[in-house]
């Protein structure tokens, strides 16, 4: 075999193996582990939940939701890095929130969970939620009726408790160590759940701090911010000076300079 050809084959092999390793490293362990559909159809929700939990959650949260303490070497099932908190006693509320927002299963354990497409079907989420709820005594999924909330009080409460991080029109923002998510895609139930849990860096609020009635007002307000009264016209995303500056320079200034060029055309004498 000529040497050039050999070298080419070796190079190709090295490249291919390198690519394979790179893809393997870059891919988080995605894909939901499911029981056989025929078997799953015969299971009770609790059984299905236990199966799904064992297949998808126990890596980090431990068998039966006891959690994996960081001291144990930070390795869960399948040698996946990451230690998850125990889930006994978190209740249906937390399970429902993390699963329906797509925060869990987590792509990278070291990063802030992000709202993403949920990989679980609705009945699977219900089953998992029921299973997590059965692990201990915890709060149920809150029932909120935004329509019954008071918008004005909600605005005051939101400004007082939430706007510092979520921006007064719930457009999100930045705090040390986290990206505060905008709330435009959060459902009323998710907002109510998040207030009680305090996901990631968010503080949790007890019923002494924010009563259920007040929470309903806040949810009403958050719903309102999704289509607020933009009585001044085009709302330019309710962020204030930032988009206003963009309009000033990229619309007003452009149009006016164009006008100057047009009007200032040399007069033919």
């Amino acid at each position, binding site marked *: 075999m000529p040497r050039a050809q050999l070298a080419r084959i070796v190079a190709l092999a090295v490249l291919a193996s390198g690519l394979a390793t790179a893809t393997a490293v870059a891919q988080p362990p995605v894909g939901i582990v499911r029981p056989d559909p025929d078997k799953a159809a015969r299971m009770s929700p609790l059984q299905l939940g236990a199966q799904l939990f064992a297949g998808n959650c126990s890596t980090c949260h431990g068998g039966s939701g006891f959690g994996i303490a960081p001291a144990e070497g930070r390795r869960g099932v399948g040698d996946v890095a990451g230690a998850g908190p125990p889930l006994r006693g978190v209740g249906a509320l937390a399970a429902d929130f993390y699963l329906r927002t797509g925060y869990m299963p987590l792509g990278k354990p070291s990063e802030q969970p992000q709202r993403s497409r949920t990989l679980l079907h609705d009945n699977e989420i219900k089953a998992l939620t029921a299973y997590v709820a059965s692990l201990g005594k915890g709060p149920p999924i809150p029932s909120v009726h935004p329509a019954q909330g008071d918008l004005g009080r909600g605005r005051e409460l939101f400004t007082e408790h939430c706007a510092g991080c979520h921006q007064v029109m719930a457009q999100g923002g930045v705090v040390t160590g986290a990206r505060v998510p905008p709330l435009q895609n959060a459902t009323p139930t998710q907002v109510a759940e998040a207030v009680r849990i305090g996901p990631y860096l968010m503080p949790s609020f007890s019923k002494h701090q924010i009563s259920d009635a007040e929470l309903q007002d806040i949810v009403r307000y958050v719903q309102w911010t999704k289509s607020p009264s*933009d009585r*001044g016209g085009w709302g330019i995303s309710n962020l204030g000076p930032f988009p*206003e500056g963009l309009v000033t320079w990229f619309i007003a200034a452009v149009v006016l300079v164009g006008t100057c060029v047009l009007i200032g055309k040399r007069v033919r004498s």
Partner: protein
Amino acid sequence: MMLRRVVAMFDERSGASPFVVKTLRYLFPDHWSFLLGEVALYSFLVLVGTGTYLALFFDPSLAHVTYQGVYGPLRGAEMSQAYKSAIDISFAYKGGLLIRQTHHWAADVFVAAIVMHVMRVFFTGAFRKPRELTWVVGMLILVTTLLEGYVGYSMVDDLLSGMGLAIGYGVALSLPVIGGNLALGLWGSPYPGDHTFESRMFIAHVFIFPVIIGLLLGLHLTLVAARHHAQFRRMRRQTNQRLVGVPTFPGQAPRSLGLLFAVAAVLFLLGGLVQINPIWQWGPYEVALGTNGAQPDWYLGWLIGALRLMPGFDVTIGDYTLVPNPFWGGVLFPTIVIGLMLVWPWVERRITGDRRVHNLLDRPRDAPVRTAFGAAFLLWVVLVFFAGSADRLYVFLRISYTSMTWIYRVATFALPLAVFFVVLTICRELQRSDALEADREAAEEEGERALRAASPQPLTPGTERATAERP
């Protein structure tokens, strides 16, 4: 006949005709970039007009009231009379919201037009002798305008303005030695200050600053007219001594009037169609309240950027803090920027040793060092300005906020330096190719002349033949 008698009547009593004739014959250079200053002027007119209407309804009082007006989500909220009156302007009075929004857009556009005008003046060297004073007065207008804008949106007492004032108070406190007394003197008592501060802001915004801007503007225009406009050299007749342009009438006046209408149209269209500073969404201010993503209006963005970029350190002597951190970004940075711009005409004279009178403008390439410095300086301020909005970029693009801060800290020094040399090179290359072109043209002309002298019979008219024979 009637008109003639009326005109004569006024002229006999005012003796104005020589002045009027002179004004009508004043020559304006014929180039669009000279209209940028006029855009600023006309924005200012719109500001004064809309501002006068708003002042009829705004109530600069911090008295506490409970809102019971037409806007549902605020009903029952505690607020200051000032904020309530701004809400009422927006919702309760005829045309109030349109005028309020137009006023705010006009402010944003006013400063933008000033910035573009300053760029034109700088990069063409229009500030040189005999127009240094015009330049200085213009800078003073810019500074006053920034203060005017800040006070304007601060006195509304909504959530954003309250947060802006807290920063302003912090910056005032940060002045070494005098800071404490200065802040107390301005605010009347420790932050948020007492009710006198609100009325001070009001009188500053509707009287003191506008009058200063108006007077400076008058002086600015008088100085421009006294020394006449500078001009580009596009024709041979345009020299340092001879201005070629269009007269006020019938040349410039209709053009300028058209621009006035265009500016007013753009501002009122924005005011009617695009929402600006929706104070009813921000809600009233209380000291304990705040919102994420709060920004100043764009023209103060460079200051918030500087405050955010500056690493956290103070100058302390024992327990005594001599220079607190906000001083660097909030006081020192703008002082350097404005100070440098103020003294630039004299700096340039020192560098070039050129003390002559300049009525002809440079093209940017004609003064490579000035252009390169201007581009680098502009980029420096613009980068600091961008740094002020890094938080929004983080939310939109998820680029780590801390990394962005460090990127900007490096980029604000590295990029301007790089741009300086790049622009310098470009200008010099352009000059060189200009010189080459001029050489070529001169040589061609000479060759043509030689050809004409050598040929036995004069060439018949028609350039085709001449060009055909040249090779």
